[in-house]
């Protein structure tokens, strides 16, 4: 079975996010003065071939912990695992 997977990687809440701060600082210049708490993360999308959804999720969890994120500074979570329907 083939699945499309989406993983979200975000900096841990306790860490300052310079990228989010940069976005937040730029917004008022464009007229948006009402935005607070900007955090910037990473969205990773890919396809994976697996026997079933459970084993696909287990593999993605391991991929997220070992490569897609650095668990020391980042949280990761699976946003979606969706089977690709063959036509």
């Amino acid at each position, binding site marked *: 079975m083939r699945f499309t997977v989406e993983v979200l990687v975000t*900096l841990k809440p*306790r*860490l*300052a996010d*310079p*990228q989010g*701060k*940069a976005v937040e600082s730029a917004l008022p210049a464009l007229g948006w003065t009402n935005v607070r708490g900007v955090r910037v993360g990473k969205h990773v999308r890919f396809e994976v071939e697996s026997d079933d959804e459970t084993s696909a999720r287990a593999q993605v969890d391991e991929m997220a912990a070992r*490569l*897609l994120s*650095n668990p*020391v*500074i980042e949280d990761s979570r699976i946003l979606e695992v969706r089977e690709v329907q063959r036509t």
Partner: protein
Amino acid sequence: MSARIGVVTFPGSLDDRDALRAIELMGGQGVALWHADRDLRGVDGVILPGGFSYGDYLRCGAIARFAPVMEEIRTFAEGGGPVIGICNGFQILCESGLLPGALIRNRSLRFVCRVVHLRVETTRTPITADATQGEVLEIPIKHGEGQYVAADDVLDRLEAEGRVVFRYCGPDGETSDDHNPNGALRAIAGIRNRAGNVVGLMPHPEHAVDPDVGPTGGQALFASLFTHVMAPAR
């Protein structure tokens, strides 16, 4: 016999040649190592140099930690061999779990390239053994992602175990936010592992050995490393 110090070149390493040159200038023998080789060529110590290994596209050091040579370096480090990670090399050591914590984007969001003052916090490492605790060294930094972070309990443990090796400071050794170039927690510029043989630091001692081109704060660190690896007790 002079100390044989290996310098690993990853695709995207920048400071490997400067590190080899600094080793030679200081009287050691530089040995070029390649990221894809599972061979440390019998060196007495290893330097992971600065640069942007594999482009640092994912996270700094995230891909380099899986390079074949890193398996050899892990074994070498576990056997007590000196491993010094400079800048990108520090990031690689953190990503590989050989050192705790991580380096994230500078607080200022700017790439910082200038000479800083560093206070030596411990002499229990191969590169500071011949220095004096509290000594202030002038060494350049050049990085965009050098803000050292770790959980509070990890930082407390590093402090308690004397594993903070360098702190950013002023000319007289004073620490303050003004003297912290990247927002590093507790002004940490370098740390060591529990055994003391693995050291990571953001500043570049290899750019600070030649009086013709700048400060010479790196000389003491190379000299100390050579003395350490040539000591018969090891």
